[in-house]
């Protein structure tokens, strides 16, 4: 006995190929009935009709769905199928919001954009204001300068407040208002950036607990987005993780034979950045290996890394630095 089925029908055939029994879905449950049956078939589970036939003939062999001679679908079946398909597709679209990779990506990119906007605003602002206030320090506490500007009544008052010389030229009234608005807006953009970063930290720590513990949530998020998602990051070899974010240098290396990059996004980590030039590659390689392990723990839901695990990696990094206190000799090298 063999049991064939699809979402709309189940058929039982004996050894001679003769149909013994057949159960057809008769539209019970309407579109929702079709949705449930399609879902079962997609997950390789038995439909209610197939289960019922199997109960009657427990010795039957269940064949893969849709194989063998099944009766044709009717126009009615097809109408149900199309409506159910649309409902399933819409549910699938709505379900995309449950994918933390997608949410992390939007949050990360929004943060990058706002960070860029914030930097552009602040640099324009200090240059603009610095034109009127020649002894203003343009590089010190730009945000504090913006805040003071946003709250000032006029340029003379601002100069007194900041302890600077009285300006030689004063802006026109409307010009001053625009300048002050620009200062207030720069402060506002900075506040938005802070909120974005806080949200990104929270999401990254939930989605990538181990990687966040190891390299911090911001860098963890950047690695994840750069790799195209947590599952893909977990599948990458750690040699790729090491140069993730340095694609330009990496492909230039393959094409022209220029020296390969030692680090990509990972350069942002103090263990790499603050190491002397000649051990950065070694440190980045070690760190990339641990990042791969952390990403795999996160993707396959293992026990997250603890502070001790991270301290162990740090000890290893410090050992690498200690083992190479001086740059290698150039003799005989490249």
């Amino acid at each position, binding site marked *: 006995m063999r049991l064939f089925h699809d*979402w709309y029908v189940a058929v039982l055939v004996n050894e001679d190929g003769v149909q013994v029994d057949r159960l057809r879905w008769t539209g019970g449950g309407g579109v929702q009935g079709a949705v449930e049956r399609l879902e079962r078939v*997609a997950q390789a589970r038995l439909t209610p009709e197939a289960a019922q036939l199997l109960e009657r003939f427990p010795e039957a062999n269940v064949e893969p769905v*849709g194989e063998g001679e099944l009766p044709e679908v009717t126009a009615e079946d097809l109408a149900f199928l199309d409506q159910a*398909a649309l409902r399933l597709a819409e549910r699938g679209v709505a*379900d995309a919001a449950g994918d933390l990779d997608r949410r992390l990506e939007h949050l990360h990119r929004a943060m990058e954009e706002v960070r860029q906007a914030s930097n552009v605003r602040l640099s324009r602002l200090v240059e603009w204001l610095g034109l009127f206030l020649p002894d203003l320090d343009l590089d010190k506490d730009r945000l504090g300068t913006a805040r003071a500007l946003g709250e000032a009544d006029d340029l003379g008052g601002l100069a007194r407040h900041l302890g600077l010389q009285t300006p030689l030229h004063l802006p026109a009234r409307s010009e001053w208002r625009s300048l002050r608005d620009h200062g207030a807006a720069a402060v506002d953009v900075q506040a938005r950036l802070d909120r974005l970063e806080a949200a990104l930290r929270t999401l990254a720590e939930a989605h990538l607990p181990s990687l966040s513990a190891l390299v911090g949530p911001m860098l963890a998020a950047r690695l994840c987005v750069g790799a195209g998602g947590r599952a893909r990051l977990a599948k990458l070899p750690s040699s790729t993780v090491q140069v993730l974010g340095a694609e330009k240098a990496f492909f230039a290396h393959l094409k022209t034979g220029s020296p390969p990059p030692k680090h990509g996004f990972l350069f942002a980590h103090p263990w790499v950045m603050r190491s002397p030039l000649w051990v950065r590659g070694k440190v980045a390689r070690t760190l990339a290996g641990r990042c791969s392990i952390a990403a795999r723990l996160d993707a396959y839901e293992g026990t997250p890394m603890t502070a001790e695990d991270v301290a162990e990696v740090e000890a290893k990094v410090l050992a690498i630095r200690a083992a190479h206190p001086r740059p290698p000799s150039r003799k005989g090298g490249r």
Partner: protein
Amino acid sequence: MGRASGKPPGRPLSDAVRMDVHAPWTWSANPGATVYGETLRKAKQGEWRRWDPRRSKVASGLLRTSGAAERLLPAPGDHVLYLGAGHGTTVSHIHDVVCHGGAPGRVVAVDLSPRCLRDLTRLSHARPGLVPVLGDARRPEAWRAWLPRRASWVFQDVAQAHQASIFTSACERFLVPGGRGLLSLKVESDRGTDADGLRVKVEHELADAGLILEEVIDLEGFEDKHLLFVVGRPPRA
């Protein structure tokens, strides 16, 4: 988006499709609406939609083919399978054809991206017979039930590695004997081969799967580094 009215464009390929010098046109199954900003042309009892060959590989194939263009398209009432449906540009024209004059055609449009499905589901509300599926072309078990009858026309445009083997297994599983399949091949998606090497490799793969290669259309100029393979599945012996 123009709405010029007057005489129908070009010469007829079939009831549903006409062809002018620059582009094919399809008889709209949903008159009054554009899908992607294409030009519309009013006619007495409906509307023609211009099928932009720069945005659709099937349309550019229709222009470039050395044989009869109409053989590349399904017929009204056909059930067809479209893998890699994207945002529904080409799908909408195929839907125009298979649902021409209220024919009970079905286009099962599979795509992996929820973003694309969003556009396809919107389109589907206005176009009954267009069936969107959120699924992976490489995993047909998950959506094969959506296509209870074999398709008479299969099109694939997935820009993934192993495009040819995805296509041959789709044809084996879903294409009716005597049906026609179109494979749009993005040369860059299969690593480590140049265009000519890939072409030969794919030709072998298609032949091994028992498909008869009718034509390979180079879409250069419309779509860079894309080849359109036109195959037929032999009728049941």
